[in-house]
């Protein structure tokens, strides 16, 4: 462990803002890249279900 206290850890030797901002952006980017396709899939499946129902009705 490189830090004596939690507040030291947050401060990152005065560079806390830059370090935490970087990690926060990274977290956002990673989450977007997982959540976006997951939501996309939900939408695709519901679209397909709707289309299938329409086709079954018409035939």
């Amino acid at each position, binding site marked *: *462990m*490189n*830090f004596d206290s939690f507040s030291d*850890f947050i401060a*990152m*030797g*005065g*560079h*806390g803002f*830059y*370090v935490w*901002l*970087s*990690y926060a*952006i*990274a977290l956002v*980017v*990673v989450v*977007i*890249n*997982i959540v*976006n*396709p*997951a939501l*996309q*899939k939900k939408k*695709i*499946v519901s679209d*397909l*279900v709707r*289309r*299938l129902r329409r086709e079954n009705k018409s035939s």
Partner: protein
Amino acid sequence: MSEKKNWMPRWFYQLASPRWSYEIMGKLLPGFAVAAFLFLIAGTVWALLFAPPEAYQGNSYRIIYIHVPSALLAQSCYMMMAIAGAIGLIWKMKVADMVAKSCAPIGATMAVLALATGAIWGKPTWGSWWVWDARLTSMLILLFLYLGVIALYSAIENEAMAAKSAAVLALVGLVNIPIIKYSVDWWNTLHQPATFKLTERPAMVPEMWLPLLVMVIGFYCFFAVSLMMRTRNEILVRERRASWVKELVEKQ
């Protein structure tokens, strides 16, 4: 007709089948997701808590654990996109087209992440948010290349045509990347000699580069997860008329 195709290994043709690819990716996904999660968490904790501070930059260098993996990923993702596109062009392999298309947004966000972390790191290091450093400039141009490919995908409505056009563009970009990189490196040395380089620190100690290695592996696993999720979506959309997709949807 089928005799002449036998020289290709069997898995190649199985890969060419969207259904088989969809199922195999479904099986691989959980494993990669767990691996990505573990590696990223372990790497982050190691990087932030246990890696020693750097002699000149203190703790701000910890951004490297995001910056380097994302930059690496942005580059290899472009290569993968171009190669997958080429396979789609040459062998008319639909799944390769879909992989190529799925690469574009991931690569673009990785390039953005690399640029953002580079800029944030630049502030404490150089005293300004943006410096026309060779690596950052090349990354910016790589982002432009990604944006061009994405714009082309969205401009062409016919999916097969869009995939082929984007593959040609990605390949042209792939040939150009070394030229661009060389020209920017050279231009940079001309304009600002001997500045403080971001990532080129000689002789990192193992306590520093081991967590970096863990992070890089974690990022690649995460890339695999996101890529497979997107490719599976793409398969569903483009194979929506196939009976197996209809059966699959009906079960849900």
